[in-house]
C-alpha cells in the first residue's frame, strides 16, 4: 500500500511536469526576456489562521484552539542568474494554557547555470536554517536546531511566470536540547513545487 501510494505520487507530479514541458514549444517563442535577470522577484508561500472549537477540538476545560501558520518564500535576483532570498516558516498552536511554537528561518541562495529562453534550467541551492521549537506539552523537541542544506535542482517553465521545480537536497542537522548534549543527524530529500516570478 505504502509503495503504491508513493509511486502514485511520483507519477502525478512527473506527469504534470512532462505535460507542462510539452506545452512549452510555442511559449519559448513568446518569451522575450530571460527569466533570471537582475531585479526579478521570485515569490511563493502561504499564510493561514484558524480558530477552532467544538467537542472534537476543545480541551477538557472547553477551550478552543488557535492555529497560525506563516511560510513566505521570497527571493530577489541581485545579479543575473543569482537569487538571494529568505526561508521562514512559523507554526503556532494554543489551546487554553498550553501552546507550542515552531520557527524555521534562514537565508538561501539559488544559482542558475544559464539565463536564456530555454524552458528548462538547472540550478544549485544553498541554505542555512535555524529552527527554534518550544512546547508546553512536548519537551523532547524543545531546543535549538541548525540545518545546512544544499543540492541541485531543475526548473521547468510552463509559461513566462510559472515553473515547476524539483530540488534534491542533503541537510546536515544539529540539535541542542534545552537540557542536554548536542545531537546530529542527516536528511536527504526531494521537493517538488511551483515557483512564480514577477519581472
Amino acid at each position: 500500500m505504502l509503495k503504491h501510494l508513493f509511486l502514485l505520487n511520483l507519477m502525478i507530479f512527473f506527469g504534470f511536469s512532462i505535460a507542462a514541458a510539452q506545452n512549452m514549444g510555442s511559449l519559448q517563442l513568446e518569451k522575450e526576456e530571460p527569466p533570471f535577470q537582475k531585479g526579478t522577484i521570485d515569490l511563493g508561500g502561504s499564510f493561514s489562521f484558524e480558530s477552532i472549537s467544538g467537542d472534537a477540538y476543545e480541551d477538557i476545560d472547553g477551550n478552543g484552539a488557535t492555529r497560525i501558520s506563516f511560510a513566505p518564500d521570497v527571493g530577489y535576483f541581485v545579479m543575473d542568474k543569482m537569487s538571494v532570498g529568505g526561508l521562514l516558516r512559523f507554526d503556532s498552536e494554543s489551546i487554553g494554557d498550553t501552546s507550542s511554537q515552531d520557527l524555521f528561518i534562514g537565508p538561501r541562495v539559488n544559482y542558475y547555470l544559464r539565463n536564456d529562453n530555454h524552458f528548462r534550467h538547472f540550478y544549485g541551492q544553498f541554505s542555512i536554517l535555524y529552527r527554534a521549537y518550544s512546547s508546553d506539552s512536548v519537551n523532547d523537541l524543545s531546543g535549538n536546531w541548525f540545518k545546512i542544506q544544499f543540492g541541485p535542482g531543475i526548473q521547468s517553465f510552463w509559461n513566462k511566470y510559472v515553473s515547476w521545480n524539483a530540488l534534491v537536497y542533503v541537510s546536515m542537522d544539529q540539535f541542542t536540547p534545552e537540557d542536554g548534549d548536542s545531537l546530529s543527524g542527516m536528511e536527504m530529500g526531494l521537493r517538488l513545487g511551483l515557483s512564480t516570478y514577477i519581472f
Partner: protein
Amino acid sequence: MKYIILVALLISAASMAFCQIDEAEEELAEYYMGGDREVGGFLHIKYQSGDIYNDVDGSGKLTVDDILDLGYFPIDKLSIGAMVKLGIWKTGLESSINTAIGPRIDYYIPYRIGSGYPYLHVGSLFATYEATDSKETHYEFGLGYSVPVNEYVSIVSLLYYSMDEIELVEATIVENGSRIGLRFGIKSYHF
C-alpha cells in the same frame, strides 16, 4: 454569532457583486476564462537519520507529504476542482498513512475591488488517519479575494467557515467541531 457574521459577509458581498456585474465584466474578461486550468501544490519526500531522528531500533524515518490542488473552468468565472492530500511516514518499527480528498467550487464575482476580484468558495474534504484510526469530514464555505499579479499568477486570500466531524473508528465516537480561518496563498493558471 460567528454564523451570523459570516452569513452577513457573504450576503453583502454577493449583493454588491450582482448589482454591479456589468462594470467589471470587461476587466474580468482576461482572467478566469472557460477552458483555463489552475494548479497548486507540492510534494516533499525526505529521509532522516542520525541521533536526532532514529527510533529505538536505530532506523531512520521516511516522510512523504504532498498537496495537489487542481481546478478547471468549464465556463467563464466558475472553477471546479479537487484537493488531494497525502501524508506518509515510516520508521523501522511502524508506519502511518494519512489521506484526504475532496471537491471544491469557486465562483469569481465580476466586481472589481481595488486590483482584485472577490470569489465565493464551497468545498469539502474527506480524510482518514491511520495512526489514530480516525476519519474526518469537513464542509467549508467562504468568501475570497483574488488579485491577479499577471495573466498566469494570482495572490489569493480566503475567509472561510468549516463544519467538521471527527470519527474515532475503533472507539465508535463521533465528535463535531467548527473552524473559522483565513488563508493566503498563490495560485497559478495554465492557459
